[in-house]
């Protein structure tokens, strides 16, 4: 029972991450460039040179978005 519940929770978490990523489709290239420049010295060049760091940061960001959404809805 609890395993089934956990699976549903995990599925919902993945679904909400996908929804967050989908909402980013409207972002302009200039805005994405600025976000990378804000996160890293050297901006997108740094991000390309450090792909694992970038992926890890994106993952952490998505989790943060979920947490903030929870805070806001409360």
């Amino acid at each position, binding site marked *: 029972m609890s395993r089934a519940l956990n699976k549903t929770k995990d599925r919902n978490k993945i679904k909400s991450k996908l929804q967050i990523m989908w909402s980013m489709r409207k972002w302009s290239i200039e*805005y994405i460039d600025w976000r990378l420049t804000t996160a890293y010295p050297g901006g997108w060049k740094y991000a390309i040179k450090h792909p694992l760091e970038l992926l890890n940061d994106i993952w952490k960001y998505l989790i943060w978005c979920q947490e903030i959404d929870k805070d806001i809805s409360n």
Partner: protein
Amino acid sequence: MLKVKIKDIEFKSPIIASSGTYGYGYEVDNFVDLSKIGCIITKSITLEPRQGNPSPRIHESKSGMINAIGLANVGVEEFCKTKLNKLNSIHTNFIISVAGSTMEDYVQVINKIEEYEGMHVGYEINISCPNIKKGGMEFGLNKDITCELTSKLRSITSKLLIVKLSPNVTNIEEIAASAELGGADAISAINTFVGLAIDHKTGRMLLSTTYGGVSGPAIKPLALAKIYKIYQKIKIPIIGIGGISSFEDIIQFMRVGSTMVQIGTLNYRDPSKISSFYNKLEFFLKNNKISKICDLVGDCIEG
């Protein structure tokens, strides 16, 4: 209904996108409804270009974030040549944020911008910067330096002059009063709180600079208290900042004395979110038979 005025400048709404959270301003123009945002404040501009601090410089914390970006920006020369024109065509007011390490830096940045035909309505002076001539102490920690810097800048521009205060002081209302004395048109309060993040397993600090600025919903009650204290001390308008994430928060900030509000951390979640507050505020005012949003400023009852 939602229009507000600071000095002789009218804003479509009290909602402002905070400095450093909306790019230079024009980057969001094609996917955010800027007609519902009263103003955008640009990233802080310094005399020379800056890459900022080494990575990691942003840490996502519970109910907010800690940043140590370190004023990464293109510098005033490049800003005037490549960014100002694009900003001139956005569909709302914009204010230029200015930072520096000496008083002369601030003066030179503003003088440089004034040489160009910018449509900006004012300057926000970021005084949470280390003053290298005073041993690295922040301008905003000392009332005399705050007053001197403000009056110096007042003498070189007639545009709106807004001083952004650091909350990391014992007596913020004293600093606000000295900015008012120096000739500021408004106060932005508050900037981020000093914070730190550490990995519990490794003991490693999670920001390259160890310390960073905490923002987001976590600081909202602290911000409300600082703003209320300032409101009781000064006459010029206050632009409230600190973890706003809903239209209800905006009303709370106005009730403790803010004429306008800035929204920052929420923009990192979704930059288009803040334009949605416009309709909600309008609906609230109609429902509660409030004719102008500025009637809410300072309208609170002590318990």
